[in-house]
């Protein structure tokens, strides 16, 4: 007993001292910029607070609060801005971008939150409709604004943002619709009421919808809260990101497919509509762990990826598929996810296990000048980051603007892929590893946890458990490590730290943490 206590005491002291002195300066940020540099194209500083009622853009400046981007040929970039305009920018690839020109193409739109260029037209989702915009007379200014689809509820509540569109491989245009939060009497007049669940929202609020090339608006899946990002993977399957809040424990990435319900029950008000693909949900579990909620409610589909709060962002935004084929570094085919509050970009690796998507997320690059709301990949593979933090808050010095993230050509030492295995995980690294550190189970640590499914805002990580790394096998090419792990749990986030791992040249992993959402054990 005495001895045990002494050991505890020893650990206690040890921990405190380690915790105290573990602060070293700044190296992650410095190192990130060795591999990916941020080029500012337009980042004015604004003195208005991002939530001020009297918010104003920088004096005499263009309020380039980027809410949509579409690359064009000849080095041009089209940019939608939140005040309702589309601008065409030239010279954005210059380094430094000193001679960028700005030309207004369209105006009068109602907070467009997406931009797509398809053939001779632009497409954008405004608060109340999906609009196709064209310049018919060739003077460089739009003169036709055709309504392609409308009919979702718009009560006038500010939180009813509408995002999109993004196109799938069949030519359907996808859009997502926010839930209204705290509707007042004037908003409630324009809502639907579902009597079993006693939920009330405007029609299709909280839904993902697609518009066919013939212009038919089809509701697909529901339960979204603030689905700010939409994107297709290389197979053409469609995904969206959601943001932490009530019913949403932390930010998420979901595969949109017919009849899926994701989390926010108020979206189910639209079950009363005849063409709802979701019917018959009569009870929503509240206050239980998410894996339990799935058991109780089969329509509830787990996210493909949870983004643990703070560790991998605080508010996920756009989804960008790296289609550069390697021009943007070693992550071709993966997703980059914009992050609003922490002004950064995260990375996602997905795989399909037993027919469903799941995968891991990793921090990728921080230090943007403002909230990263939109992403677009340029002709040369670089990423444009469209910035705007108005209405919420973010890190960084600017309220809005445009930056470009350029790969320096140096390959960072990173976990490129993290794949689920029946007995653990396989890591694929971007560079050959040092066998000694990588085969040592002590170089790793892992724990797993989930979230509470409840009506409260956000959730703590619950039911946390440490897992044991039993052994590690390295592939002959020294690019892969197979971690044999006991205690895997389905539907839980598995958080891996690889502090001890070194590349063959002795580098530590640039971002030594990975978070795998293990919905299925293969």
């Amino acid at each position: 007993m005495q001895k045990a206590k002494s050991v505890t005491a020893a650990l206690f002291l040890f921990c405190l001292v380690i915790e105290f002195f573990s602060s070293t300066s700044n190296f992650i940020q410095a190192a990130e910029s060795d591999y990916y540099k941020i080029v500012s194209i337009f980042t004015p500083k604004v003195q208005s607070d991002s939530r001020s009622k009297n918010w104003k853009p920088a004096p005499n400046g263009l309020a380039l609060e980027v809410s949509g981007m579409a690359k064009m040929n000849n080095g041009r970039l089209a940019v939608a801005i939140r005040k309702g305009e589309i601008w065409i920018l030239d010279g954005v690839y210059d380094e430094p971008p000193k001679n960028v020109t700005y030309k207004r193409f369209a105006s009068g739109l109602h907070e467009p939150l997406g931009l797509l260029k398809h053939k001779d037209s632009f497409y954008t989702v405004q608060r109340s409709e999906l609009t196709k915009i064209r310049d018919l007379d060739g003077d460089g200014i739009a003169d036709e604004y055709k309504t392609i689809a409308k009919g979702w509820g718009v009560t006038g509540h500010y939180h009813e943002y509408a995002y999109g569109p993004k196109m799938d491989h069949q030519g359907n245009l996808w859009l997502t619709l926010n839930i209204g939060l705290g509707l007042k009497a004037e908003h409630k007049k324009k809502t639907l009421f579902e009597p079993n669940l006693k939920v009330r929202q405007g029609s299709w609020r909280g839904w993902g919808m697609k518009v066919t090339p013939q212009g038919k608006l089809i509701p697909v899946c529901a339960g979204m809260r603030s689905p700010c990002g939409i994107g297709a993977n290389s197979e053409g399957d469609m995904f969206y990101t959601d943001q932490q809040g009530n019913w949403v424990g932390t930010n998420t990435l979901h595969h949109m497919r017919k009849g899926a319900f994701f989390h926010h029950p108020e979206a189910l008000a639209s079950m009363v509509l005849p063409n709802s693909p979701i019917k018959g949900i009569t009870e929503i579990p509240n206050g239980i762990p998410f894996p339990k909620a799935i058991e109780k409610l089969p329509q509830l589909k787990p996210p493909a990826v949870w983004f643990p709060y703070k560790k991998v962002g605080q508010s996920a935004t756009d989804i960008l598929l790296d289609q550069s084929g390697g021009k943007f570094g070693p992550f071709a085919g993966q997703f980059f996810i914009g992050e609003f509050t922490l002004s950064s970009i995260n990375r996602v690796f997905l795989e399909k296990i037993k027919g469903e998507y799941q995968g891991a997320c990793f921090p990728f690059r921080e230090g943007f000048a403002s909230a990263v709301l939109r992403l677009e990949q340029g002709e040369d593979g670089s990423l444009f980051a469209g910035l705007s933090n108005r209405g919420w808050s973010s890190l960084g010095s600017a309220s809005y603007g445009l930056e470009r993230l350029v790969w320096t050509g140096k390959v960072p030492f990173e976990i490129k892929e993290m794949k689920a295995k029946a007995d653990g995980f396989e890591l694929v690294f971007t560079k050959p590893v040092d066998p000694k550190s990588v085969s040592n189970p002590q170089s790793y640590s892992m724990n797993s946890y989930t979230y509470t499914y409840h009506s409260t805002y956000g959730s703590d990580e619950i039911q946390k458990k440490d897992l044991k790394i039993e052994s590690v096998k390295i592939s002959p090419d020294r690019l892969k490590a197979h971690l044999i792990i006991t205690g895997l749990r389905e539907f839980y986030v598995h958080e891996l730290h690889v502090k001890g791992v070194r590349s063959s040249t002795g580098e530590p992993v640039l971002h030594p943490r990975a978070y795998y959402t293990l919905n299925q054990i293969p």
Partner: protein
Amino acid sequence: MILTTINKRCLQILIIISPIFFCQSAIGEEPASPFVAGFDRFARHKQIDLKTSGRLLVTELNCTACHSSNNKELQPKQGPILTGAGNRLQNSWIKQFLSNPQKTKPGTTMPDLLSHLSADEKKKSIEALATFLSTKHQPFPELKSTGVNPLPLEYWKKGNASQGEQLYHQAGCVACHEPDPDYEGGSNNLSPFDKQLEQLDPEDIEELGLNHLLRPIKSVPLPDLKKKYTLKSLLFFLLNPESVRSAGRMPNLKLKTLEASDLAAYLLKDQKIKKAETHVSDSLVKRGQKLFVELNCINCHQIKGLKPLKKFTSLTKLNITKINCVSNSDKALPQFHLDNTQIESLKVTLTDLKKNKNKEKLSHQAQLDFRILKLNCYACHEREKQGGIGRNKKRFFETIGHVDIGDEGRFPPELTGLGQKMLLGLMKNVLEGKSEIRPFMTIRMPRYPAKETIPLPELFSKADQYQKITEATVFGGQKGLATEGRKLINNGCIQCHQLLDEKLPSVVGVDLAGMSKRVHPEWFRDFLLDPASLKTRTRMPTFFPDGKSSNPDILDGKVDRQIAAIWAYLKEIDKHPLPEKILAAQSRDTELVPEKHPILIRTFMKEAGTHAIAVGFPEKIHYAFNAENVQLSQLWKGRFLDAKGTWYERFTPPALPLGKNLISMPAKPSFAFLKNLKQDWPTENNRIQFLGYRLDKQKIPTFLYRLNNHDFQDRISPDGSNGFTRIIHLNKFSQEKNSGKLYFLVNSGKKLKQKKPFSYTNESGLTSVLPELLSKKGILHKQEELTLWILPLESITQFEVKYQW
């Protein structure tokens, strides 16, 4: 508790030993004596008397931490609280500091308490004390990253040193501490007063008694921070200095977490911490704890759970000839390394206190002076020709954005006459850090611990002999004056001042709203009459030269009434609109003014709904179209619309038409298929589809929509500035059968009158005019109390209607 169970066991733990750097002396020459800001600045140059300077040393050197005094003014400032020393301070630094405080941190007020020990004993004692302190842990606060205050993961590692450098030199640190000689920022503008000084020769300056203005102010020394702190511990100290230094000598600069992180990154730039192993034994910890009490460290440095042991002679009973700490002998203990000036001051003070037995009653003025001396308010503020920013530091005080609004835009205000000027409540708020009156300065007014500042507002008031005069006495009746005050402010004040955060472009100045809660009414009156008499070197002009108003048309030019009116408006500003010029400036950036072409904006509107399309024309007539139920909704004349709410406001308020002559169109569908004329006009039309719009060469939109088998093109354009001409094309694109015939609603109302030929006017004043031929086809359709003027559209492919109001 836990420690006692570690029996005779040495534990291997990691402790950090940093390489020994040269001591960094912040003020150039190495002071052999403790540095006390007020003493150094004033006592050494005979700007305060010996008695006061000695009293200052009594509190700042913590004499009364051992030699107690019941005099409230003479309580010790105390040393840093060491409850969390184990995780706040590097252990190697503690050891180095204990071995020779004055050498490790030149200018420190911490005496050497080990100077009497042999080298070996001293080494052992230091080892024990440092080991004991290394076990004193207090967890740092857990700061949550929220939507409002986002923090990156491990934010203390992510400070930006160059932003920290800016902060250090701008936020106020350098008012007390030494600037970096290589810092390139700062203002090169000499203030006009300094320019004048520059031109005087030294003899004149001496003759004018201005020598003190030229003297460089020495800085409060800093230790070698890189050896003392870690990023995390320094960050949390900067965020909340009073948690460690309770007397507010280092005040709270109200840094945001990320600012503190930047500042820590700057102050600890390139810090290298090496890890090394050392032994911690329980017996050593116990010995350290015992020494900490026995050596009286505890008298100045609080540690939870420990109390002072010894009683010392109280301050007034000390025998001045015998006390050895007030000497510069090598045997002095505690060894303060006092210099002769300090010893002399202390002796005079102690003799005096003994003589008066503490019974001397200080005047309010003296109490105030002493308190602001202790808190070093003089580092930034001047009062009665004492203190103010030193000449060597002025360049670091700037207006944000380098806007030139004179000294008062850069330098903290003078405190001379403050009691006559400022209300007690505001003084309290300012000291507690709750009031930001001059957000345009880079320097921040810091927050002080309440216990140090509670008496200050009263002291200012009494020292400045403020006599309360009521508002009514100063201004007389104010009823109805506010409107006139608004005009006066519109004509003058707003050229330099803002109101409720609203201002003319490029104006930088104090916000006048809330003035009546900040200053005394008679000060306000006197200041307006002659600003320079109350504030030397102010740029504020008088609007009442020679006691005459420059606005003779307002309130008959009566000066006292005009000042009362300004006061009244500022007091009731919430109940009145802002001055005209500000209102105009407000909407200048966001008001949509169609000039060459019409302007179209989609937004939320009260009448036109959540799918509203507002279109404004250079002819100053405008309309709003409801794209949800596809109806023309509202018409108006004059100014078009302010887009601020639509463009920039988070809560997306409905856009309000700015103009006049607003008229609502009949709230019924424009088109309907009726089986017969007995059928009611429908209240809504669910099947109508909005299809968008096209802009023609004149940028006038033509709306496109579809109802059953008909496509419509609807163009509404100004008919001069009288009203609109609406032309609608119909295209029946299939022969599918409709249930009934198609009609257009031309006008409706409870009363429709035919005032002009071919037209009907309803009770709201909307006149709809059809061409002669068509008007004959029109039918008056009665429906309950309404009369609808409807037009059958069979075989019509285009028609025109005019709206006038």
